[in-house]
């Protein structure tokens, strides 16, 4: 009897042990097992956030075409949107890297340790055909791939039809902006929608205005901030800019419950014509147009001061090749395939991109985009937002901005708190001067 019990126990122990070990080993060998089973063909892994699964680069027809031409299969790893960064950080840290990653260049420098983890692509053939290398470069090297150079613009998204009906013109300074708000409010419409439950949304106004202020009045400012020669709190204009955004709320020109409303409500608010304006990027215009093309939305610069430039986001959604990619050559082949004139033209046409390749023509753009190109991009009346210059995670700054609207911090206190956090983050990252 005792013997039987012993045996059962031993079996159970063996089963548990083998289950736990199997769990470990399957993770290790999954990629290579795929390879050998598919006689001659190889498979590359492309990791992409679930929220970006509509990306032009992972269109199924395109992937099929690539497999037909090269006999290389692209296997998609869809990462949960809110964990994309963490999962990628972990994969890179333990060397379990995918062969290609889609991510944003600016965030890759802050979140994914670009220099250490990713391959420099300077010597790839397609680089010589690029019109704007900057949007794909960091630390002086091309680290990423994209067919578009349209970075997305940030400012005040506004309903043109509404402005026309009320006889309003685009405000060019803060006083005019407040006057416009007053008139819209008098017409019974909420002038500005602030979805500040999402803390990042509170950063659109300052990120564009700070950058424009620095570019026009104090060209070395951002460089100085990043080298700890100056602090955020000692720039009075920054506090003034934060106070302006608060004033818009304080004067009752916004939705009532700004800290309960979230960004995902924005499209609906514009579709229902409940609101006239919002501090946001032109991607919102595109999202509204998809639902109802009859609404005419436009974008004007954050009117913190006379004649401000339109904020430009850093380009997003690029492809990167990790240094530890197991199929480096195949991954590069995939980029070559995407960069080929035919494929690039197809993607540019389909997505209405502003082409970044000299031999690929930009198709006719949607009305709002055409206007932005004519009024701001061509006359170079744009400025990269501060976010594009930051080397560390900014989510804590967004929280402080949110706190300003919760009544927890004044404009000055927001900047002081951010100075402390910024200092700590830069120190942790090992930036000289901190």
């Amino acid at each position, binding site marked *: 009897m*005792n013997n039987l*019990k*012993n045996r059962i*126990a031993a079996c*159970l*122990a063996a*089963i*548990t*042990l083998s289950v*736990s070990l199997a769990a470990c080993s399957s993770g290790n060998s999954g990629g290579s097992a795929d390879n050998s089973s598919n006689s001659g063909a190889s498979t590359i892994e492309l990791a992409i956030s679930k929220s970006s699964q509509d990306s032009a680069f992972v269109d199924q027809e395109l992937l099929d075409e690539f497999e037909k031409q090269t006999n290389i299969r692209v296997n998609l790893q869809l990462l949960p949107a809110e964990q994309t*960064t*963490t999962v990628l*950080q972990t994969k890179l*840290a333990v060397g379990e890297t995918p062969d290609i990653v889609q991510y944003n260049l600016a965030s890759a420098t802050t*979140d*994914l*340790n670009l220099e*250490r983890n990713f391959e420099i692509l300077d010597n790839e053939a397609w680089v010589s055909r690029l019109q704007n290398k900057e949007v794909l470069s960091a630390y002086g090297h091309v680290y990423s791939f994209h067919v578009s150079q349209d970075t997305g613009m940030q400012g005040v998204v506004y309903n043109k039809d509404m402005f026309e009906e009320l006889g309003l013109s685009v405000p060019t300074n803060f006083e005019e902006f407040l006057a416009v708000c007053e008139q819209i409010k008098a017409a019974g419409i909420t002038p500005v929608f602030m979805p500040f*439950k999402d*803390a990042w949304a509170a950063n659109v106004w300052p990120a564009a205005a700070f950058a424009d202020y620095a570019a026009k009045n104090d060209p070395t400012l951002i460089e100085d901030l990043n080298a700890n020669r100056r602090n955020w709190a000692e720039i009075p204009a920054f506090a003034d800019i934060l106070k302006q955004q608060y004033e818009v709320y304080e004067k009752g020109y916004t939705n*009532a*419950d700004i*800290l*309960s409303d979230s960004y995902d409500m924005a499209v609906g608010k514009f579709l229902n014509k409940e609101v006239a304006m919002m501090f946001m990027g032109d991607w919102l215009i595109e999202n509204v147009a998809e639902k109802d093309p009859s609404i005419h939305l436009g974008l004007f610069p954050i009117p913190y001061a006379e004649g401000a430039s339109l904020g430009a986001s850093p380009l997003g959604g690029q492809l990167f090749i990790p240094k530890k990619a197991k199929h480096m050559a195949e991954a590069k082949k995939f980029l070559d395939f995407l960069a080929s004139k035919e494929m690039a033209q197809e993607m540019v046409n389909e997505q209405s991109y502003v082409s970044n390749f000299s031999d690929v023509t930009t198709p006719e753009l949607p009305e709002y985009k055409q206007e932005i190109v004519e009024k701001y991009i061509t006359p170079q009346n744009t400025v990269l937002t501060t976010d594009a210059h930051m080397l560390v*995670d900014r*989510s*804590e700054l967004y*929280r*402080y901005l*949110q*706190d300003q*609207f*919760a*009544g*927890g*911090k004044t404009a000055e206190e927001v900047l002081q708190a951010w100075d402390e956090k910024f200092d700590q*983050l830069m120190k*942790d*990252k*090992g930036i000289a001067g901190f």
Partner: protein
Amino acid sequence: MKISKRLYPYYMIWPAFLVYSVFFVVPAIIGLYYSFTDWRLDREVIRFIGWDNFRTIFTDETLILALKNTIIFAIVTVIGKNLLGIALAIGLNMKLKTRNLLRAVFYSPSILSILVISIVFTPMLRTEGMINRMLSAIGLDPLTQAWLTDPSIVIWTIAAVSIWQHVGFQMAIYLAGLQSISKDYYEAATIDGAGPWRSFINITLPLLLPAININLMLTLIGGLKVFSEVFVLTGGGPGNASQVVGTIILRAFGEGSWGLGTAINTLLFAGVTLISIPLLIFMRRREVTE
């Protein structure tokens, strides 16, 4: 007698112990080591830095606020869930026609996903949401609040939602405890002239102690480890007003400060252990048997 004591041989614990070791004990020990290092996303070399992480924890304003919020949340939910749980259990232990229905109704929130709770409560708790409208409608305007957006009350709101959700579970344990108390005691007490209050204090409470102990432990540990309620209702906001230790750990990992995140986690683990084990020993001693 010997047979009943050793019904199963000791080696039967090995499978469970093995799983427990591989997935809990070993990571916990490794974590303990990492909490004394500067392990970061962008460091190639991990260095031992002694108590630095812990010094950071106790000097960072947000971390102190998170500790404070966690303690408030734990105390409020322990008191709320247990007092209401006992009250509900006693009420639903009486002979009511709808007793079973009511038990099911009060228990049902605890089987709902926290995400569902968030979707239901977030709109209700808005400034112009259902709760404030109800208060206004019955003339209690002064009581209306910005439940989830006023930094001074947000943690209390979250605690209240948590009590609402889990009180049914506590109730179920108390009900089981109540039903194990023999009716004879109450009969004898009534003959001796004791009223309902005296019976409650002198019979129900002492004999309910095992249930109270287990509930206190469960709610206390749950309260100190709070994460999901805060994460889904406010994400720690507005600003950092409702951050708790659990959400701060997530933030630390998100910023790439893995060493610091592990240190906060170690601290939470130590805190929960140091509070709950002595409490458990203390309470065990006071238990009485029939």
